């Protein structure tokens, strides 16, 4: 659970906001706040996860520091979210990774890449890494089928289970039955809000990144990352179907569906993650929270390296670098999936749950 001081501080700020309400037009947080008079730790973690960190409220706030009320909602909510991601993940040992997002991301990436390289060396010898492999099932000559598919499947399933368990626990703790979650209209509304990033639009003018001026840059960059990620997921799914249903293992020709989807997704991911990293670097530190920034940067870097190595592999797959690049790329993919439930990716799960709760509450109110 978040510390008592953090809960008390967040509740203090919410009481001020609830007596003011000037920000109620910005996002879903303030209308949800207005349905309450007191703020429990659970209420606050729900509200915190409903916050998209657009910062409109911070720059509009007449009580922001240096005012003695020192209201800084984006910051206190970022602290609460970091605690949510930690508290609802499992096992506790790995949940500790949240405390050192950047370091953990780096270590896990390095270990994963080294592990795959080692695996290839042990299974195939150094020659495999340094020679060109072309033609049908060339990738499996570098990493055998079972070694590629089984660990990946295990890691992904484990991550999915951790996130699902976290989401269920979060939903129950913030006060709802699971049956309640299956509200068609609320699901539709929450999904639309998530896919359009409605609350990063700031009512039209955008959000306050990197500073108090309004811009749509964060929203568009986030779209690039999110939809790039989905395209890459689609590419992988289509490739798996080709391999297992049609008996056509990778690599595929340049104009095949997996390569086109994957390349487009990869380019979007590179552009989006680089853009967001630049935006983070330039943005005002006052409404930011240290742990969350570290987590953001770690996740963006792992995503960026995964996409970059994937694109490189595509470009150089007919050269002698192919073996090593494949090993490195697979290592990065492994790192990405290992860290998914313990890093910034988790925001997707808790924010979506909070959006559903918000939609249910507003429909009732």
């Amino acid at each position, binding site marked *: 659970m978040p510390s008592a001081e953090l809960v008390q501080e967040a509740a203090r700020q919410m*009481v001020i906001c609830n007596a*003011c309400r*000037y920000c109620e037009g910005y996002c879903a947080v303030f209308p949800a706040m207005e349905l309450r008079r007191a703020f429990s730790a659970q209420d606050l973690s729900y509200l915190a996860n409903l916050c998209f960190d657009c910062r409109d*409220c911070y720059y*509009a706030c*007449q009580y922001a520091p240096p*005012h003695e009320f020192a209201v800084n909602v984006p910051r206190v909510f970022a602290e609460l979210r970091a605690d949510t991601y930690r508290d609802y993940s499992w096992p506790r040992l790995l949940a500790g990774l949240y405390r050192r997002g950047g370091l953990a991301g780096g270590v896990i990436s390095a270990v994963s890449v080294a592990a795959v390289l080692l695996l290839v060396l042990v299974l195939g010898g150094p020659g495999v890494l340094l020679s060109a492999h072309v033609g049908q099932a060339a990738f499996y000559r570098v990493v055998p089928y079972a070694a590629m598919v089984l660990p990946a499947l295990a890691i992904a399933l484990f991550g999915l289970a951790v996130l699902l368990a976290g989401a269920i626990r979060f939903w129950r703790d913030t006060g709802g039955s699971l049956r309640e979650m299956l509200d068609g209209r609320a699901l539709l509304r929450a999904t639309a809000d998530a896919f359009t990033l409605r609350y990063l639009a700031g*009512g039209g003018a955008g959000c306050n990144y990197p500073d108090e001026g309004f811009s749509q840059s964060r929203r568009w960059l986030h779209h690039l990352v999110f939809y790039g990620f989905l395209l890459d997921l689609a590419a992988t799914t289509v490739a798996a179907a080709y391999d297992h249903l049609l008996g056509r293992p990778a690599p595929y020709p340049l104009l095949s569906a997996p390569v086109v989807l994957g390349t487009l997704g990869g380019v979007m991911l590179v552009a989006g993650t680089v853009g967001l990293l630049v935006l983070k670097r330039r943005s005002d530190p006052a409404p930011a929270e240290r742990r969350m920034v570290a987590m953001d940067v770690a996740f963006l870097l792992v995503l960026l390296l995964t996409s970059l190595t994937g694109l490189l592999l595509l470009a150089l797959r007919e050269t002698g670098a192919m073996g090593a690049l494949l090993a490195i790329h697979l290592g990065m993919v492994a790192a990405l999936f290992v860290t998914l439930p313990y890093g910034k990716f988790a925001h997707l799960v808790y924010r979506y749950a909070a959006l559903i709760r918000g939609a249910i509450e507003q429909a009732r109110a």
Partner: protein
Amino acid sequence: MPDRFYDVVVVGGGNAALCAAITAQRGGADVLLLEAAPEALRGGNSRHTRDIRYMHDRAGAFVTGAYTAEEFWEDLQRVTGGETDEALARLTISESADLGDWMPAHGVRWQQPLKGTLHLARTNVFFLGGGKAMVNAYYDTARKQGVEILYEAEVQRLNVDDGVFRSAVVARGGASGEVRAKAVVVASGGFEANIPWLKEYWGEAADHFVIRGTPYNQGRLLKELLAHGARPVGNPREFHAVAVDARAPKFDGGIVTRLDSVPFGIVVNREASRFYDEGEDFWPKRYAIWGGLIARQPGQIAYSIVDARGAGRFMPSVFPPLQAGSLTDLAGLLGLDARALVATVEAFNRAVRPGSFDPSRLDDCRTEGLEPPKSHWALPVDQPPFWAYPLRPGITFTYLGVTVNRQAQVVLRDGRPAPNLFAAGEVMAGNILGRGYLAGFGLTIGTVFGRIAGREAARHAVG
């Protein structure tokens, strides 16, 4: 200090000053804006606002119906009791007609009325994010347009020869310098944050006043203009004040310290006596008089008391209520004479006549044979727990100002207008709102006269 000769210098950093600076720059003038506050606290009292009243002939996306010039004028006459310059008032109203377009064109964004303020949904339009968001938008517009802005720049003196402005003496960062310009717009607010000045009229009572807005409204420029022969307008003793929580910060507490609990219980003074009809009229209409009422009570303090029936019926406030299981214990918490409080409440409860309680209309729940009466929403105060909020007068603005003409030129005592000395905003609002209060109207005056002052100052400076 910038060593340049400006066309127009604007003194102040709130809504009126920004509207003047933007308009003067657009009129071709080289403009310097001098804001006394640091950047983070810029914007004067405008940062605490949230909506503006303006004339419009039909409903729109953000207003629910028409608000005609005639109705606007009637509202103004009613609240001021006639203490208004009709020509300037009608000018303000007619010039407000395009605010719905002008403000968004300069970066301000609208939103639906906030919950709890629906009584203003027809006449007023609300800013997305409130007054500070509006002020931020104007600063952004002004900066992009090329207005030069200096923060923590305090104008200490104006050099004026027989009504002609020459220069301003400005203190900044321990140094002071002289800024020369062809014209000046004074838009630096009233004097409500100047406690020693308030004491000239209110004596020691002023120590107990809470100032809801910026501590930078010291009225230095108002005093300076009066010293240079400007004709005063408005009652210097009077201010607009609402009831705020006595635990509020001395300055800048803004909206969150106000209390809406009054109609749902009783209000007693330090002697535990009631002193005014808590149910006289709807709270939005009566809200504005309670600061003045409390300012005239002993010790400038009062206590709003509600029981379990009243709790939760009003907007939450920022400080928790003082709570007790009995009136005697509550009196102990408040430092009131317990027997006196119990007697007051019992007398009130005995006088309450049965009726059907309805906060949405002037209902028939009232007292009989009680002085002062409670005319509506009177329910017995007898269900524990009992809640109390200590109340103080929360000063919003002062009425004293300088007289201006239709060109926003300062009018001198002998009736001559000062050729290059303009005023806008709270420093001249007393011409139009000599008394009373109309929600969102201070900003209307500031925006209309800010634009007029900016336009005329630029015309004077660059022809």
